[in-house]
């Protein structure tokens, strides 16, 4: 198993080594030691490898991830899994602001809390937060699912498009054009599937969640809605 000690190697050396991997590589399990909050660890991975990062990471860890499974054994700084395409990123601690921002696909799991703007402008990613999320989460979210087992801060889903938000705890306030919606059977199945993918089968009940999405009033400019934008 390749082991990269970031107390010795640079992040650039690590990322270049990861970028050199081909889809048929045999080096499929990596360990990264001493991340010490460094930025941009494991950005732009494009192959199905498993990566364990043993500690806290800085900004943009596993950004643009494609195919890889990245486990962060600690907290993550701003923009973890930003613009992820596919694969899985699992933060075992807390995540800072803008977790999963603009993500197009894949699954981001956060065991602790996520800070403000979680899932901002998400475009297809699924995000599951076992703790709570901060204010302005899922702002302008376009597609994908944000599942929160804890509480949500102010202005949840402000100006949301077609993404779906499931929250088990309390929502401090909803943002512009975000409303609670009744869950259909298909929605319930989708939520159950997401909980299962995050290893929460049986640990969280679908019935305990409420679902939020777009009222679709702000899709097209209408002067009567001017104050809502």
């Amino acid at each position, binding site marked *: 198993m390749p082991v990269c000690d970031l107390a010795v190697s640079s992040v650039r050396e690590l990322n270049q080594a990861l970028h050199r991997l081909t889809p048929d590589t045999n080096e499929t399990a990596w360990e990264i030691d001493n991340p010490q*909050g*460094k930025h941009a660890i494991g950005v732009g991975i494009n192959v199905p490898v498993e990566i364990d990062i043993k500690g806290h990471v800085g900004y943009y860890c596993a950004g643009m991830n494609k195919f890889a499974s990245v486990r962060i054994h600690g*907290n993550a700084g701003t923009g973890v899994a930003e613009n992820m395409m596919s694969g899985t990123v699992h933060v075992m601690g807390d995540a800072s602001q803008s977790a999963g921002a603009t993500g197009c696909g894949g699954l981001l799991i956060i065991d602790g809390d996520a800070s403000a703007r979680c899932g901002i402008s998400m475009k297809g990613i699924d995000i599951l937060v076992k703790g709570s999320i901060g204010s302005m989460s899922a702002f302008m979210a376009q597609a994908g699912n944000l599942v929160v087992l804890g509480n949500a801060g102010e202005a949840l889903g402000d100006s949301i498009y077609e993404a779906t938000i499931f929250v088990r705890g309390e929502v401090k306030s909803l943002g512009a054009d975000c409303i609670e919606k009744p869950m259909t059977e298909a929605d319930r199945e989708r939520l159950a599937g997401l909980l299962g993918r995050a290893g929460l089968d049986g640990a969280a009940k679908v019935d305990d969640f409420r679902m939020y999405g777009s009222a679709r009033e702000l899709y097209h400019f209408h002067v009567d809605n001017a104050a809502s934008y």
Partner: protein
Amino acid sequence: MCGIVGLFLKNKALEPALGDMLSKMLVTMTARGPDSAGVAVYGAGNNDRVKLTLRAEDAGAAAALANELPAALGVPVDVSIRANHIVASLPRDAEAAALQWVKARAGQIQLVSVGTHMEIYKDVGLPEHVVSEFALAGMAGSHGIGHTRMATESAVTINGAHPFSTGEDQCLVHNGSLSNHNSIRRTLVREGMSFATQNDSEVAAGYLTWRMSKGDSLKQSLTSSLEDLDGFFTFVVGTRNGFAVLRDPIACKPAIMAESDDYVAFGSEYRALSVLPAIEKARVFEPEPATVYAWERS
């Protein structure tokens, strides 16, 4: 961007290492602010003597002025010199005369801070340079705060460097920018306060000093700043026996903290905390927006 750090020791056994820990934290934040750096260290002192931190043009000028001061005041003055900064410890009843002496030498020397336990050192240049210039790593103390500046609101000068001190043993470092600092400055000037710079962060420090002069605790003064100060901010504030952190209501600027039985530490990024001893055993968390976090020593 700016980088800020703070360290409040709970375990007295760590006090000889305060400067060393703070230096490492500060240098780690160089990428966030390479223009200037500064620290406030709360170390030895007693309430009967006042410590003035003064800044001269250079080390030579500092030495000459430090020689002049005791004779000018006619009282015993303990003087220590670190590069171009002088810390003069003098009897409290000589404070007014000492401040007059400084005022009379405007252009040659500037007052940086007044306190009983606090000393402030700041200069332009990379944090690594500033830390070694003042031999920060060798300083002992109970708590300290530091700042690496990326200039936005005012010029790259020593006057624009943080920490800002506007009251005895009080200081503040700020990451962000205030939008209503001019109107708050005018209000505070009408209240009798004076400011040495046009910097927005000095206004924030002055605001807290003003609130505390009206009887607010450190925590209360920060709570009321949420109503009165507008803009982006993360503040880290020190008082003689206190240490506090506040972020604006939308938490525009990054912040992360660690707390253990040994210390409370603040950094703009986790990297600044990663250099601390036993950090892996501390509780690491992101402070909530619009929430005052404050600690006091008994």
